[in-house]
Protein backbone atom coordinates (compact mmCIF):
# COMPACT_ATOMS: atom_id res chain seq x y z
CA UNK A 1 0.00 0.00 0.00
CA UNK A 2 2.67 2.46 1.09
CA UNK A 3 4.75 1.50 -1.84
CA UNK A 4 1.84 2.12 -4.19
CA UNK A 5 1.30 5.50 -2.67
CA UNK A 6 4.89 6.64 -2.93
CA UNK A 7 4.84 5.76 -6.60
CA UNK A 8 2.02 8.13 -7.31
CA UNK A 9 3.58 11.04 -9.18
CA UNK A 10 1.98 14.46 -9.47
CA UNK A 11 -0.96 14.30 -11.81
CA UNK A 12 -0.30 17.63 -13.47
CA UNK A 13 1.85 16.12 -16.19
CA UNK A 14 -0.14 12.94 -16.45
CA UNK A 15 1.42 10.71 -19.03
CA UNK A 16 0.50 7.28 -20.10
CA UNK A 17 3.19 5.97 -17.80
CA UNK A 18 1.73 7.92 -14.92
CA UNK A 19 -1.64 6.45 -15.65
CA UNK A 20 -0.26 2.95 -15.74
CA UNK A 21 1.56 3.43 -12.47
CA UNK A 22 -1.49 4.97 -10.91
CA UNK A 23 -3.80 2.27 -12.10
CA UNK A 24 -1.47 -0.44 -10.97
CA UNK A 25 -1.36 1.30 -7.62
CA UNK A 26 -5.12 1.21 -7.52
CA UNK A 27 -5.10 -2.46 -8.38
CA UNK A 28 -2.60 -3.15 -5.67
CA UNK A 29 -4.76 -1.32 -3.19
CA UNK A 30 -7.75 -3.35 -4.26
CA UNK A 31 -5.81 -6.55 -3.90
CA UNK A 32 -4.90 -5.49 -0.41
CA UNK A 33 -8.56 -5.11 0.29
CA UNK A 34 -8.40 -1.36 0.58
CA UNK A 35 -10.75 0.91 -1.22
CA UNK A 36 -9.43 2.39 -4.43
CA UNK A 37 -10.36 5.73 -2.97
CA UNK A 38 -7.52 5.48 -0.49
CA UNK A 39 -4.98 5.63 -3.33
CA UNK A 40 -6.45 8.95 -4.16
CA UNK A 41 -3.97 11.15 -5.45
CA UNK A 42 -3.48 14.80 -5.10
CA UNK A 43 -5.37 15.69 -8.27
CA UNK A 44 -4.66 18.89 -10.16
CA UNK A 45 -5.98 21.98 -8.47
CA UNK A 46 -9.52 20.88 -8.00
CA UNK A 47 -12.61 22.31 -6.48
CA UNK A 48 -12.88 21.97 -2.75
CA UNK A 49 -15.95 21.56 -0.57
CA UNK A 50 -15.63 25.28 0.20
CA UNK A 51 -15.71 26.09 -3.52
CA UNK A 52 -18.72 23.84 -3.84
CA UNK A 53 -20.51 25.77 -1.11
CA UNK A 54 -19.48 29.07 -2.70
CA UNK A 55 -20.73 27.95 -6.11
CA UNK A 56 -24.04 26.87 -4.61
CA UNK A 57 -24.39 30.16 -2.73
CA UNK A 58 -23.60 31.98 -5.96
CA UNK A 59 -26.72 30.45 -7.45
CA UNK A 60 -29.16 30.36 -4.57
CA UNK A 61 -28.02 33.40 -2.58
CA UNK A 62 -29.02 33.19 1.04
CA UNK A 63 -32.20 31.23 0.43
CA UNK A 64 -32.59 28.16 2.64
CA UNK A 65 -31.84 24.82 0.97
CA UNK A 66 -34.25 22.11 2.00
CA UNK A 67 -34.03 18.38 1.47
CA UNK A 68 -36.83 16.54 -0.26
CA UNK A 69 -38.82 16.80 -3.52
CA UNK A 70 -35.64 16.45 -5.55
CA UNK A 71 -34.02 13.13 -6.38
CA UNK A 72 -30.48 12.75 -7.65
CA UNK A 73 -29.88 9.38 -9.22
CA UNK A 74 -26.23 8.36 -9.58
CA UNK A 75 -24.60 4.95 -9.31
CA UNK A 76 -22.97 4.51 -5.88
CA UNK A 77 -19.96 2.98 -7.61
CA UNK A 78 -18.72 4.19 -11.00
CA UNK A 79 -16.06 2.16 -12.74
CA UNK A 80 -15.18 4.88 -15.18
CA UNK A 81 -15.34 8.51 -14.14
CA UNK A 82 -15.28 9.63 -17.75
CA UNK A 83 -18.96 8.91 -18.18
CA UNK A 84 -21.36 8.50 -15.31
CA UNK A 85 -25.06 8.54 -16.04
CA UNK A 86 -27.00 10.93 -13.83
CA UNK A 87 -30.71 11.63 -13.55
CA UNK A 88 -32.21 14.50 -11.62
CA UNK A 89 -35.94 14.56 -11.06
CA UNK A 90 -38.08 16.92 -9.04
CA UNK A 91 -41.53 16.31 -7.68
CA UNK A 92 -43.46 19.28 -9.06
CA UNK A 93 -46.88 19.79 -10.67
CA UNK A 94 -45.12 21.85 -13.40
CA UNK A 95 -48.03 24.28 -13.74
CA UNK A 96 -47.83 27.96 -14.57
CA UNK A 97 -48.24 28.78 -10.88
CA UNK A 98 -45.90 26.18 -9.45
CA UNK A 99 -43.08 24.76 -11.51
CA UNK A 100 -39.38 24.10 -11.38
CA UNK A 101 -37.52 26.99 -12.99
CA UNK A 102 -34.03 25.60 -12.88
CA UNK A 103 -31.98 22.55 -11.95
CA UNK A 104 -28.33 22.98 -11.06
CA UNK A 105 -25.75 20.28 -10.46
CA UNK A 106 -22.46 20.79 -8.64
CA UNK A 107 -19.57 18.57 -7.69
CA UNK A 108 -16.93 18.65 -5.03
CA UNK A 109 -13.67 17.53 -6.61
CA UNK A 110 -13.62 18.17 -10.34
CA UNK A 111 -11.44 21.11 -11.40
CA UNK A 112 -14.54 23.30 -11.42
CA UNK A 113 -17.52 22.96 -9.08
CA UNK A 114 -20.17 23.59 -11.73
CA UNK A 115 -21.56 20.65 -13.72
CA UNK A 116 -24.72 21.86 -15.41
CA UNK A 117 -27.63 24.26 -15.16
CA UNK A 118 -30.92 23.57 -16.84
CA UNK A 119 -33.70 26.09 -17.39
CA UNK A 120 -37.18 24.69 -17.72
CA UNK A 121 -40.78 25.69 -17.16
CA UNK A 122 -44.37 24.53 -17.34
CA UNK A 123 -43.84 23.45 -20.96
CA UNK A 124 -41.44 20.79 -19.75
CA UNK A 125 -44.32 18.84 -18.21
CA UNK A 126 -41.99 16.91 -15.98
CA UNK A 127 -38.97 18.25 -14.12
CA UNK A 128 -36.48 15.56 -15.00
CA UNK A 129 -33.27 15.38 -16.96
CA UNK A 130 -30.57 12.84 -17.65
CA UNK A 131 -26.98 13.50 -18.69
CA UNK A 132 -23.63 11.77 -18.49
CA UNK A 133 -21.00 13.50 -16.41
CA UNK A 134 -17.29 13.23 -15.67
CA UNK A 135 -16.07 12.66 -12.14
CA UNK A 136 -12.44 13.28 -11.34
CA UNK A 137 -12.53 11.43 -8.03
CA UNK A 138 -14.82 9.76 -5.54
CA UNK A 139 -16.95 12.61 -4.34
CA UNK A 140 -20.28 14.13 -3.44
CA UNK A 141 -22.49 15.48 -6.20
CA UNK A 142 -25.17 18.02 -5.30
CA UNK A 143 -28.33 18.85 -7.24
CA UNK A 144 -30.46 21.89 -6.53
CA UNK A 145 -33.90 22.69 -7.87
CA UNK A 146 -35.26 26.21 -7.95
CA UNK A 147 -39.04 26.55 -8.08
CA UNK A 148 -41.16 29.39 -9.41
CA UNK A 149 -42.36 30.09 -5.86
CA UNK A 150 -38.80 30.72 -4.71
CA UNK A 151 -38.05 27.49 -2.89
CA UNK A 152 -34.77 25.63 -3.24
CA UNK A 153 -34.56 21.89 -2.84
CA UNK A 154 -31.30 20.05 -2.44
CA UNK A 155 -30.23 16.45 -2.90
CA UNK A 156 -26.79 14.93 -2.86
CA UNK A 157 -25.22 11.62 -3.78
CA UNK A 158 -21.89 10.02 -2.97
CA UNK A 159 -20.13 8.31 -5.86
CA UNK A 160 -17.07 6.12 -5.57
CA UNK A 161 -15.03 6.37 -8.75
CA UNK A 162 -12.50 3.62 -9.42
CA UNK A 163 -11.02 5.15 -12.58
CA UNK A 164 -11.00 8.92 -12.48
CA UNK A 165 -11.84 11.04 -15.49
CA UNK A 166 -9.04 12.97 -17.18
CA UNK A 167 -6.33 10.34 -16.75
CA UNK A 168 -7.58 7.44 -18.78
CA UNK A 169 -6.63 8.50 -22.27
CA UNK A 170 -4.24 10.94 -23.79
CA UNK A 171 -5.66 13.67 -25.94
CA UNK A 172 -4.52 13.08 -29.48
Amino acid at each position, binding site marked *: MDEAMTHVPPLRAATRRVFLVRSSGATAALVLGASAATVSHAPPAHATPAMLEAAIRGVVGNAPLRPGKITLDLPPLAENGN*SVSMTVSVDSPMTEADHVKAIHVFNEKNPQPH*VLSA*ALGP*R*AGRAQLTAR*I*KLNDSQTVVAIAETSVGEFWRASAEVIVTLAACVEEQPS
Partner: protein
Amino acid sequence: MSHALISVPKAVKRGQVFEIKTLISHRMETGFRADAKGQLVPRDIIQRFTCTYNGVEVFNLKLSPAIAANPFISFFTVATESGTIALRWTGDNGFAVEETVSIKVE
Protein backbone atom coordinates in the same frame (compact mmCIF):
# COMPACT_ATOMS: atom_id res chain seq x y z
CA MET B 1 -18.77 17.04 -38.84
CA SER B 2 -20.85 16.45 -35.83
CA HIS B 3 -23.39 13.78 -35.77
CA ALA B 4 -26.53 14.00 -33.67
CA LEU B 5 -29.01 11.30 -32.77
CA ILE B 6 -32.46 12.30 -31.60
CA SER B 7 -35.18 10.09 -30.25
CA VAL B 8 -38.73 11.43 -30.14
CA PRO B 9 -41.95 9.41 -30.28
CA LYS B 10 -43.50 9.48 -33.75
CA ALA B 11 -46.97 10.40 -32.56
CA VAL B 12 -48.20 11.59 -29.20
CA LYS B 13 -51.54 12.55 -27.70
CA ARG B 14 -52.33 16.16 -26.92
CA GLY B 15 -51.26 16.97 -23.37
CA GLN B 16 -49.02 13.93 -23.11
CA VAL B 17 -45.63 14.39 -21.49
CA PHE B 18 -42.98 12.74 -23.63
CA GLU B 19 -39.24 12.32 -23.47
CA ILE B 20 -36.73 13.72 -25.94
CA LYS B 21 -33.37 11.95 -25.94
CA THR B 22 -30.37 13.41 -27.70
CA LEU B 23 -26.82 12.35 -28.33
CA ILE B 24 -24.24 14.35 -30.23
CA SER B 25 -20.66 13.50 -31.09
CA HIS B 26 -18.28 15.97 -29.50
CA ARG B 27 -15.01 15.42 -27.67
CA MET B 28 -15.81 17.82 -24.79
CA GLU B 29 -12.14 18.56 -24.15
CA THR B 30 -11.98 19.97 -20.63
CA GLY B 31 -9.01 22.30 -20.94
CA PHE B 32 -7.47 20.69 -17.85
CA ARG B 33 -5.65 17.86 -19.55
CA ALA B 34 -2.07 17.83 -20.71
CA ASP B 35 -0.89 16.18 -23.89
CA ALA B 36 2.19 13.96 -24.19
CA LYS B 37 4.45 17.03 -24.15
CA GLY B 38 2.89 18.40 -20.99
CA GLN B 39 1.06 21.20 -22.81
CA LEU B 40 -2.49 21.88 -21.71
CA VAL B 41 -4.97 21.01 -24.41
CA PRO B 42 -7.24 24.03 -24.94
CA ARG B 43 -10.83 23.72 -23.88
CA ASP B 44 -13.30 22.67 -26.56
CA ILE B 45 -16.78 22.01 -25.22
CA ILE B 46 -20.42 22.49 -26.07
CA GLN B 47 -21.59 25.34 -23.87
CA ARG B 48 -25.29 25.44 -24.47
CA PHE B 49 -28.09 23.17 -25.60
CA THR B 50 -31.55 24.51 -26.34
CA CYS B 51 -34.79 22.92 -27.42
CA THR B 52 -37.59 24.90 -29.03
CA TYR B 53 -41.02 23.53 -29.81
CA ASN B 54 -42.67 25.46 -32.66
CA GLY B 55 -40.40 28.37 -31.89
CA VAL B 56 -41.01 28.40 -28.12
CA GLU B 57 -38.09 27.44 -25.92
CA VAL B 58 -39.04 24.55 -23.66
CA PHE B 59 -35.65 23.49 -22.29
CA ASN B 60 -32.14 24.80 -22.21
CA LEU B 61 -29.02 23.46 -20.63
CA LYS B 62 -25.74 25.13 -19.79
CA LEU B 63 -22.95 22.57 -20.07
CA SER B 64 -19.53 22.57 -18.42
CA PRO B 65 -16.32 20.61 -18.95
CA ALA B 66 -17.76 18.11 -16.46
CA ILE B 67 -20.17 16.80 -19.10
CA ALA B 68 -18.91 13.54 -20.61
CA ALA B 69 -17.70 13.37 -24.20
CA ASN B 70 -20.45 12.85 -26.76
CA PRO B 71 -23.07 14.49 -24.56
CA PHE B 72 -26.25 12.55 -23.96
CA ILE B 73 -29.10 14.74 -22.79
CA SER B 74 -32.65 13.68 -22.19
CA PHE B 75 -35.57 15.72 -20.91
CA PHE B 76 -39.34 16.02 -21.16
CA THR B 77 -41.91 18.27 -22.78
CA VAL B 78 -45.69 18.45 -23.15
CA ALA B 79 -47.30 17.73 -26.51
CA THR B 80 -49.22 20.87 -27.45
CA GLU B 81 -49.63 20.80 -31.22
CA SER B 82 -48.08 19.17 -34.27
CA GLY B 83 -45.02 20.89 -35.55
CA THR B 84 -41.28 20.89 -35.30
CA ILE B 85 -38.91 20.49 -32.42
CA ALA B 86 -35.58 22.20 -33.01
CA LEU B 87 -32.50 21.20 -31.04
CA ARG B 88 -29.46 23.40 -31.05
CA TRP B 89 -25.97 22.82 -29.65
CA THR B 90 -23.47 25.68 -29.53
CA GLY B 91 -20.00 25.81 -28.11
CA ASP B 92 -16.32 26.67 -28.31
CA ASN B 93 -14.57 27.26 -31.63
CA GLY B 94 -17.78 28.28 -33.34
CA PHE B 95 -19.43 24.91 -32.81
CA ALA B 96 -23.09 25.15 -33.86
CA VAL B 97 -25.38 22.31 -34.86
CA GLU B 98 -29.11 22.48 -35.30
CA GLU B 99 -31.36 19.50 -35.91
CA THR B 100 -35.11 19.49 -36.29
CA VAL B 101 -37.61 16.69 -35.89
CA SER B 102 -41.30 16.82 -36.63
CA ILE B 103 -43.85 15.71 -34.09
CA LYS B 104 -47.41 14.67 -34.76
CA VAL B 105 -49.95 15.39 -32.04
CA GLU B 106 -53.25 13.55 -32.23
